[in-house]
């Protein structure tokens, strides 16, 4: 980078420290909601002793790492994704000395941290490069792409580039100020009809916390939000590289009436911030109900209590009464989740049997809980079976887990199994906002029973194409492979039910047009359709695997996931990244992590920021550039830097 003379001085000062980060670059290429992100860094051990240098990158949990390479003093280490056992065996044969890698999942903000550490002599040059891919989901009317920037120190060449290409056009793109006021004016957005480029390239001076400071103020989340043009309610069908992707996000439809049973945990552990935030959120949520909606509230601890035994209309009187009721609740006692959910389902069934429920309305149970069951049925698998047994096809269960003491996997399973979704709510000062945001996502169902189909023999390997509900502001995505055909047009048919009407819509796409267009786009991700299909398929298989009723079925799904992940080079719970030197004599292994057991690893308090999205300090998180002075082993004092024993103090990573 070309530096001003002042910056040159600063750089000399930085270089005088033990570790110098010469370059830190992040580039994301987003094509049709699918993002490929590359994080590159160049580091020098500018100290006088051998030391460990780490490279830590926080990535969204929903992303799959797809590659990692590193060059240590001219020796290149290349990554490849393999089945876990294969990777572990290979790793065991040639463990790299003085190098380690791992992926650590923290109980915060749905993040993982990819960590690599190398122990190198003075003057060493190391270049790191990490790749990951993810699909962006539309929520509340926009897509959000986040990058976690923590260079740890001032960097002469610091640059973030995000390229977006959306074939149907970009409706709007903006960058909320999540990095801090200091950087608000430094983020530049250029956009045309179907492309956008967001760049953030602060100078050394601009990175500083203060004018004379030597530390960096860049420590947070870089966010981009955008939405696409939609010229039809039928959706957008794209064909590329032998694969198709259909996006469906209609608008301008009247919302369906809702029947909601709110099931709220008021056990003793909810006392304090959690209950306060829940009450605050419920005030706004109840206000959102209309006269066409029906609702009730069940609060439970070791007992189960109903504000109203039956569903009532969302009139202002009923809402006001419900709000008062919620405010009067004092959390105490144990937790009987099973009984609470049984009662909720009973309420919906009764209303349905009595003809109180509009057949075209949407019925939901929204469960808010912060802990495991302690009273009544406490075996989670039994509760799961009980719920599945009594639920009806037309009811959905949404689960919100507050805090870290709840078994989130359980909540996720019962939601997924009952046509809903689960979300973790972080028990902090903005939990109310998190709850409200979640509710906003499900407060306006527009369509039920959506099916996206294709003519016989035109496609194969289609991902989930039947959806129970479509909510305003979201998007349904179906992908698959296009079979060879004489026609150069692919057609899809979407059927759905709205309030009182049934809809069938047809969408067409030219099978060659998009590839021609992508070839002209310098910054597009040309393999996006193939990778997006693999990404969606793997995600769905992972969910299916969690709900597989038998070991045989589970094994079959496991095999499929592994095969796809290896073919498409995704690090998943069943595959690992093996990084090896050119001569294969040194290997590192980065395994996909398990979630930490709930109840541990509280994650500590979040950083500031109104969005609540600032990264959270985990139990131990060294700064990205780990600097640990280690004495050279006496026997090697004169030998030189050929082989160095591991330092006495190491960061433990997975597979140690």
């Amino acid at each position, binding site marked *: 980078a070309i530096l001003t003379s002042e910056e040159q001085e600063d750089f000399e000062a930085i270089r005088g420290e033990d570790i110098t980060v010469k370059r830190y670059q992040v580039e994301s290429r987003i094509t049709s909601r699918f993002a490929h992100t590359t994080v590159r860094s160049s580091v020098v051990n500018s100290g006088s002793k051998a030391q460990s240098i780490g490279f830590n990158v926080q990535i969204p949990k929903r992303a799959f790492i797809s590659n990692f390479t590193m060059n240590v003093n001219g020796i290149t280490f290349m990554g490849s994704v393999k089945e876990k056992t294969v990777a572990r065996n290979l790793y065991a044969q040639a463990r790299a000395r003085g190098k380690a890698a791992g992926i650590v999942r923290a109980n915060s903000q749905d993040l993982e941290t990819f960590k690599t550490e190398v122990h190198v002599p003075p003057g060493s040059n190391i270049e790191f490069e990490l790749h990951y891919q993810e699909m962006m989901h539309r929520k509340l009317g926009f897509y959000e792409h986040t990058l976690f920037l923590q260079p740890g120190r001032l960097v002469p060449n610091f640059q973030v580039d995000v390229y977006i290409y959306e074939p149907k056009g970009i409706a709007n793109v903006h960058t909320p100020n999540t990095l801090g006021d200091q950087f608000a004016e430094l983020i530049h957005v250029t956009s045309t009809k179907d492309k956008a480029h967001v760049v953030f390239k602060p100078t050394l001076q601009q990175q500083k916390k203060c004018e004379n400071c030597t530390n960096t103020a860049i420590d947070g989340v870089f966010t981009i939000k955008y939405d696409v043009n939609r*010229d*039809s*309610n*039928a*959706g957008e069908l794209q064909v590329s590289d032998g694969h198709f992707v259909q996006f469906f996000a209609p608008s*301008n*439809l*009247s919302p369906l009436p809702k029947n909601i049973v709110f099931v709220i945990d008021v056990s003793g552990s909810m006392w304090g911030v959690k209950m306060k935030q829940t009450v605050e959120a419920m005030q706004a949520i109840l206000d959102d109900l209309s006269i066409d909606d029906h609702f009730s509230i069940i609060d439970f601890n070791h007992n189960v209590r109903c504000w109203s035994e039956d569903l009532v209309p969302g009139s202002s009187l009923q809402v006001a009464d419900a709000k008062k009721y919620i405010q009067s609740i004092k959390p105490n006692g144990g937790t009987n989740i099973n009984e609470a959910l049984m009662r909720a389902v009973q309420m919906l069934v009764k209303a349905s049997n009595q003809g109180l429920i509009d057949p075209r309305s949407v019925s939901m149970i929204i469960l808010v809980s912060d802990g495991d069951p302690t009273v009544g049925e406490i075996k989670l698998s039994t509760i799961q079976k009980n719920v599945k047994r009594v639920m009806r096809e037309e009811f959905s269960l949404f689960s919100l887990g507050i805090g870290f003491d709840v078994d989130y996997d359980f909540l996720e399973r019962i939601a997924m199994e009952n046509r809903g979704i689960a979300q973790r709510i972080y028990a902090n000062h903005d939990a109310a906002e998190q709850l409200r945001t979640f509710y906003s996502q499900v407060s306006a169902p527009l369509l039920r029973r959506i099916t996206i189909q294709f003519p016989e023999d035109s496609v194969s390997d289609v991902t989930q194409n039947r959806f129970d509900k479509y909510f305003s502001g979201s998007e349904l995505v179906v992908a698959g492979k296009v079979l060879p055909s004489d026609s150069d047009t692919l057609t899809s048919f979407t059927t759905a039910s*709205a*309030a*009182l*009407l*049934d*809809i*069938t*819509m*047809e*969408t*067409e796409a030219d099978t060659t047009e998009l590839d021609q267009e992508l070839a002209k786009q310098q910054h597009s991700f040309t393999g996006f359709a193939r990778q997006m299909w693999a990404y969606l398929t793997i995600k769905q298989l992972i969910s299916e695997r969690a709900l597989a009723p038998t070991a045989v079925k589970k094994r079959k799904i496991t095999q499929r996931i592994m095969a796809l992940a290896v073919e498409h080079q995704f690090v998943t719970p069943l595959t690992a990244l093996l990084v090896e030197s050119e001569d294969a004599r040194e290997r590192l292994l980065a395994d996909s992590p398990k979630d930490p057991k709930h109840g541990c690893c509280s994650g500590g308090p979040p950083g500031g920021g109104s969005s609540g999205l600032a990264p959270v300090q985990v139990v131990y998180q060294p700064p990205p550039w780990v600097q640990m002075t280690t004495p050279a082993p006496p026997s090697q004092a004169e030998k030189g830097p050929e082989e160095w024993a591991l330092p006495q103090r190491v960061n433990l990573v997975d597979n140690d």
Partner: protein
Amino acid sequence: PHFIIHLPTSNMDVCFNIDSKPGDILNLVSDAGTGLVVNGRLISSKQPHKGKLSTYFGAISVYYEPDGISVTVHTGGIAMSDGANSHSFTWGATAEVTQDGVRISIVKNSHVTVTVNNHTQVMVLLHRVWKKHPVNVDFLGIYIPSSNQYSPLVHGLIGQFSREPEVSVHDVRPGVDPMKNEATMEVKGNRLQVTRGLQKDYRSDAKRGSAVSCWFVHNSGKGFIDGHYSQYIVPSLHSFLHAP
């Protein structure tokens, strides 16, 4: 708007223009018996051409009172409402929507057919023009089959002809324009001077249309339609006609 009325028994087509003001809503079909009404609102071209501002249909509404469902077709999209709920669709995708006895079939960027109880159909054709044309604007055409079933109370600029009048044309002679014959038409007790002309049916080809020879009735169909055309101007897109 150019009207073409096909008379199956007489085996002839009679046409006339309605030259009204932009913003006026003309009643096309008003059937108090079945509860069906079809109205069209006029829009104008962007500026006068040869001193004259042209008018077209910019919105056509089909309202079926028994179900309370209305379908309003605009040049920008199609809106459906049942009083409590409203939904809109664009011209950008082929779709079919059904609610109670009303079915809407949209053919992408082409036309929409509204079918009521399987026995009454209205087809609205989209005419798109170059956006930057200095004069022309997008507009709509409407096609209503003779086979539609109405009650005896049906009326409107088009509906009145579901009861086919007796028409006779005689004394065909060369007209002022040698390419266009003239003749005398007797209809509804009126004797009219008519001119042989060509109109267009755009159902098969929305750009060029196919020629339809017809006897043109001058002065906004005076003598051929019941009453005066101004009696077919209604206050809203859902309004029924009070018979002249």
